[in-house]
């Protein structure tokens, strides 16, 4: 009975993950996974000694409530940090299981040491990722942190030998060191690389599950954990390829935030435009390409953008396309989620390879809150974190409209020479507000 349920559960999970491969089936995939998990939870509770059942149920209820409230409170643009944090909690759970297993045991085996290490590291690394993605921590002095983390690594290796003997103080010490290591290791990593990091941590949380499964001889945990571990690793690989980053570089190259210091401009160097200018340019164009970035997410401009596209298409017969960079925003597919939310037809949305040849023939490109993903320095500035990342080749279009609040750099901390080009019109202000004004203007103008 137990084993056939285990099999049922992992089959449901495999089918769920498989469904995630197409937008049409992905939602159902999630439901399959929820069904599998519900079976697991119920079965787990039933098999519990009756004296513990009530406590476990309360823990689950409390945790579940916190999780759901947390998720509800999260705005869509905060989803990436939420995913990071949740991931960390999974790691923490494994770590705690590992610690509890070692209490009252004379000797730890390697498995248990691994569980504690990986679990705690995943937890604290995810928390660090959460802070970085929320913008709560900004790091300048990466070198010191890196040297510190090497020392911590050494300390935790040493402490693992002591922990091996099963004394609780040492085990706790080892756990804390592992956590510290994760934190210090993730902290100095370039912000632009955070999605890769989340993916790595995701994969680690899978491997934690495998390790716990191995220690408990539980085939369900082993299979599911390995599945997630492997899929996370592959996802990491695919992402590093999409960003043209090497994994080792992501992990070990210090960020140099001051790389743009030799590139100081003021608002006098730019050509400022008004929403009216923008509306005029776009309604007279044959072809407009819209390039959204993190700023669209931050200002929640997607619905206005959808209105703008609709008016341009219907009223002014403009050929409108959306060009989406694979790492625009703060997580892969971030823009797609938002544009889908605003009911923008998928036929209008194009990936980097399809849209890049089109910039040449477009009349106007409307960049809203995108910066790094259109930054031509990616081609030339060797010491930048985005060097050699493929960009959207916005610079080939006749007129460039850029909406952002200031001349502040993007996520990678890099100034953007496009802002100062003659053919660029800067629309300084909140993305949603400016787009709304453009829409109003478009509505009033006669075609």
């Amino acid at each position, binding site marked *: 009975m137990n084993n056939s349920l285990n099999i049922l559960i992992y089959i449901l999970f495999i089918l769920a993950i498989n469904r995630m491969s197409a937008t049409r089936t992905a939602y159902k995939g999630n439901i399959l996974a929820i069904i*599998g998990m519900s079976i697991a939870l119920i079965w787990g509770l039933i098999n*519990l000694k009756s004296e513990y059942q009530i406590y476990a149920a309360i823990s689950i209820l409390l945790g579940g409530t916190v*999780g759901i409230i947390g998720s509800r409170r999260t705005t869509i643009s905060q*989803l990436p940090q939420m*995913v990071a944090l949740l991931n960390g909690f999974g790691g923490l759970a494994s770590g705690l299981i590992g610690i509890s297993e070692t*209490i009252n045991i004379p000797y730890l085996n390697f498995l248990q040491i691994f569980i504690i290490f990986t679990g705690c590291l995943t937890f604290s690394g995810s928390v660090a990722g959460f802070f970085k993605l929320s913008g709560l921590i900004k790091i300048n002095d990466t070198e010191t942190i890196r040297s510190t983390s090497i020392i911590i690594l050494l300390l935790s290796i040493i402490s693992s030998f002591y922990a091996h003997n099963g004394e609780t103080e040492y085990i706790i010490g080892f756990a804390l060191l592992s956590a510290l290591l994760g934190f210090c290791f993730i902290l100095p990593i370039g912000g632009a690389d955070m999605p890769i990091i989340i993916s790595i941590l995701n994969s680690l949380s899978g491997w934690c599950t495998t390790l716990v499964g191995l220690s408990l001889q539980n085939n369900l945990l082993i*299979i*599911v954990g390995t599945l997630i571990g492997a899929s996370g690793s592959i996802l990491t690989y695919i992402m590093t390829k999409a960003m043209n980053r090497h994994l080792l570089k992501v992990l070990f190259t210090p960020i140099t935030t001051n790389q743009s210091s030799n590139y100081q401009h003021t608002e006098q160097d730019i050509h400022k435009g008004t929403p009216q200018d923008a509306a005029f340019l776009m309604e007279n164009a044959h072809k407009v390409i819209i390039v959204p970035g993190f700023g669209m997410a931050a200002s929640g401009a997607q619905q206005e953008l959808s209105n703008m596209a609709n008016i341009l298409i219907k009223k002014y017969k403009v050929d409108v396309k959306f060009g989406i960079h694979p790492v625009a925003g703060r997580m892969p597919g971030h823009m797609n989620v938002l544009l*889908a939310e605003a*009911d923008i037809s998928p036929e209008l949305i194009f990936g980097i390879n399809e849209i890049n040849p089109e910039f040449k023939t477009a009349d106007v490109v409307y960049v809203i809150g995108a910066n790094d993903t259109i930054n031509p320095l990616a081609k030339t500035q060797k010491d930048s974190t985005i060097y050699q990342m493929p960009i959207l080749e916005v610079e080939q279009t006749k007129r460039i409209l850029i909406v952002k609040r200031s001349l502040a750099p993007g996520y990678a901390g890099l100034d953007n020479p496009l802002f100062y080009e003659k053919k660029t019109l800067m629309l300084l202000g909140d993305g949603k507000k400016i787009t709304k004004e453009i829409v109003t203007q478009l509505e009033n103008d006669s075609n």
Partner: protein
Amino acid sequence: MEIYLIDILILSGFIGYFAIWNVTPLLHSPLMSVTNAISGIVILGALENLNFSSTPITTILLLIAIFFASVNIFGGFHVSARMLKMFKNKDKTNE
């Protein structure tokens, strides 16, 4: 049994590999979020261990583990559903 254990690890790894390889980048975020929620299955480990818990400390540690794993599970599925619902709605309007 050792022999089969390594087979299971390898085969599961391959399944992870195949299942992910075709996913469009567009769905990478929801995918991560779903797999993340699924990895909360480790909660079964905590529940199983609870049966053998001998001291209050381990019981409390395991209950905390159950709490956090539940946050991960419920929050993770909820976040995923939120992301995926948008795609789903869009798909309907197009049909």
